């Protein structure tokens, strides 16, 4: 894997390979000494044009656990307002010896441009671009779902099982709820989860569902209660920004109270879910808007675990990109000696 720009870049074998590698990485993280020597001598640059402490720290932790050197470069605002172009910033970082650039950017397609415009020849990992893609978030979500649910919707028991290694998410039904229009998380998840065999239903107010969604490989609904009544195996709540409410932000919904009433996940709704269903959220949460405290802290919630899994998944991505491991059809079978060796 040379770059990771979009969940659409991942075919099923590659996606499963990333998840399986992440499982091996996760196993090492239970040890007393968490650090692996795998990427010693490699330099990873976290190039963040948008504030995202959580994602940046997750990538930083992942890179450091693999013994890579990490440079954090926070360039607030767009290239235009900053006065230096994305191209110049990227070339500066390459000149300092970056092997991989992890980029978060408010403009959709900025990582794509970085990888394909001939500005630099480093690997590029998309850590979220505009309203386009956030592939490592989708990978950690898929990883989390796979750990908890086996195909068909049976909850895996504890940490003793195989945790789904080698498999996909076939037949699992996932509801993704909230601001679909502005969400890069949802675009990556629709592609990755369906690649892995899951069925995705998007739920949100019509104002927050994009024109053109009909071409996506998923169902769309405006009725949260109706979708919950079908008993989804996983319910993923998306962050809704309060700024979207006012006329200046587009007036997408009338009030936080009405949003919570129609599309918020609360104790009442969670009680109607099947026993095995899990509740997810990419964070940061707006407690009391898209998710109530009862729902966020319920035993079904795997939200905190998603954060831990994020480190394992990003370790796997950095390893597969930087160690030059063959991926997809070119790769040896999952759990091979290669990947094990890396995780040793």
């Amino acid at each position, binding site marked *: 894997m040379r770059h990771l720009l979009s969940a659409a870049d991942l075919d099923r074998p590659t996606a499963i390979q990333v998840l399986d590698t992440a499982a091996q990485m996760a196993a090492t993280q239970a040890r007393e000494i968490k650090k692996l020597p795998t990427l010693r001598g490699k330099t990873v640059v976290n190039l963040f044009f948008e504030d995202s402490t959580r994602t940046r720290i997750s990538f930083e932790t992942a890179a450091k656990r693999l013994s890579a050197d990490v440079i954090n470069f926070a360039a607030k605002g767009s290239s235009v307002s900053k006065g230096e*172009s994305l191209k110049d910033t990227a070339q500066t970082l390459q000149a300092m010896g970056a092997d991989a650039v992890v980029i978060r*950017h408010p403009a959709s*397609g900025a990582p794509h441009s970085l990888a394909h415009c001939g500005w630099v020849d480093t690997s590029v990992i998309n850590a979220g671009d505009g309203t*386009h893609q956030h592939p490592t978030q989708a990978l950690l979500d898929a990883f989390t779902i796979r750990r908890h649910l086996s195909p068909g919707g049976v909850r895996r028991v504890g940490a003793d099982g195989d945790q789904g290694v080698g498999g996909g998410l076939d037949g699992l039904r996932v509801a993704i709820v909230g601001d679909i229009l502005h969400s890069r998380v949802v*675009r990556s998840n629709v592609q990755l989860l369906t690649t892995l065999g899951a069925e995705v239903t998007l739920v949100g107010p019509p104002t927050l569902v994009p*024109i*053109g969604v009909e*071409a996506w490989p998923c169902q769309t609904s405006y009725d949260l209660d109706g979708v919950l009544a079908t008993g989804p195996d996983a319910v993923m709540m998306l962050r809704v920004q309060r700024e979207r409410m006012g006329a200046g932000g587009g007036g997408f919904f009338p009030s936080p109270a009405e949003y919570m009433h129609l599309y918020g996940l609360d104790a009442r709704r969670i009680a109607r879910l099947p026993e095995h269903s899990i509740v997810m959220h990419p964070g940061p949460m707006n407690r009391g808007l898209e998710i109530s405290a009862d729902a966020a802290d319920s035993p079904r919630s795997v939200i905190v675990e998603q954060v831990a899994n994020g480190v394992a998944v990003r370790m796997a991505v950095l390893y597969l990109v930087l160690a030059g491991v063959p991926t997809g059809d070119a790769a040896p079978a999952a759990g091979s000696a290669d990947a094990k060796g890396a995780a040793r």
Partner: protein
Amino acid sequence: MSYLLRAVSPLGGAPTDLLLAKGVIAAVGAEATAAAGERGVTVVDGSGLVALPGLVDLHTHLREPGREDAETIESGTRAAALGGFTAVHAMANTTPVADTAGVVEQVWRLGRAAGWADVFPVGAVSVGLAGEQLAELGAMASSAARVRVFSDDGRCVHDPVLMRRALEYVKAFDGVVAQHAQEPRLTAGAQMHEGIVSAEVGLQGWPAVAEEAIIARDVLLVAHVRSRLHVQHVSTAGAVEIIRWAKSRGINVTAEATPHHLLLTDELARTYDPVYKVNPPLRTQEDVDAVRDGLADGTIDIVATDHAPHPREDKDCEWAAAAFGMTGLETALSIVQQVMVDTGRMTWADLARVMSVTPARIGRLEQHGRPLAVGEPANVTLVDGAARWTVDPDRLATGSRNTPFGGRELPGRVVATFLRGKPTVLDGAPAREAGMHA
């Protein structure tokens, strides 16, 4: 110096000879042939070449004054000549804005001095393109530049009262308001056509309705005040349908399509290459087909380039940070030939109508878009319709490289362009003397 164009095919018809002398077409046929060998007559072998009236662009951004890093009147009109144009209308969104008699006269004079093509300035509708107060349209109309086309192009005259006033006011001097139809509230922050592709690539959508709603309003307004409306760069199937309806009702509206909206679609945005970022945006194949149909059946009257040069730094960046616009003067004829003539949907005479005769009529130009007949101004373009060439952005004459057609092989090559009998292009290259004859 006179020029004898031997065996050219006027509008693609039977070969004949044209003699260009003293700024006019002095003779046609045997009478012209007889001039061969006379002193001061240069013979141009035109066998296999189509002769067209010099092309007229109703929509060109020459960028001067203000953005000479992107284009100058000199470089832009040289590109125009190479594209077969003898007249271009220079849009008003310069710095300063062409909203006074002083600015339009300056642009007009610079065009005269350059000598590659006649430059007809377009006057701004509103002061500073701000959409609030009418600019001095009368002063621009009666200036040396004799402005007849008014437009806030780049911005929409969205205030219905201002639009009404502008339409009414230009009646005094037979002017026309050329509208950039874009409802601003529906397109705040918009980056590309809103549809399946925008949903997937995560770029904010520019919905077709934002164009169509303004066009619908404007055709009703112009019917009410009995003036002249020109709709710029029609890009959607719905817009074509509204204009077709308006014309069927006898409403006085004309419309243009750009070469890029006749050929390219929003699928290109998947590359995130800002060379495909343009306003209005590239639409779907269904829209492209409707625009072609509209041009073929006369709903859309003309092709205009919307030539919009930008310096490299404004395109060598992420999509959202990039400027809107594409160059087009040097590729327009080839695109129209490929899409409309080579497909059998139009004849060369039709092409002359949509790229010369009608744009000249809309702009109320008396010396352009005329028949290839004795006594008419010698504004003539010779095209080799059988030639093919590959667009190399580095080798175009325009001051900027933002052509969306780089690497494409296109049919049709402009071999010669004559402006009032003097060559601005010969053998497909700029004629060096052109700049010296104002």
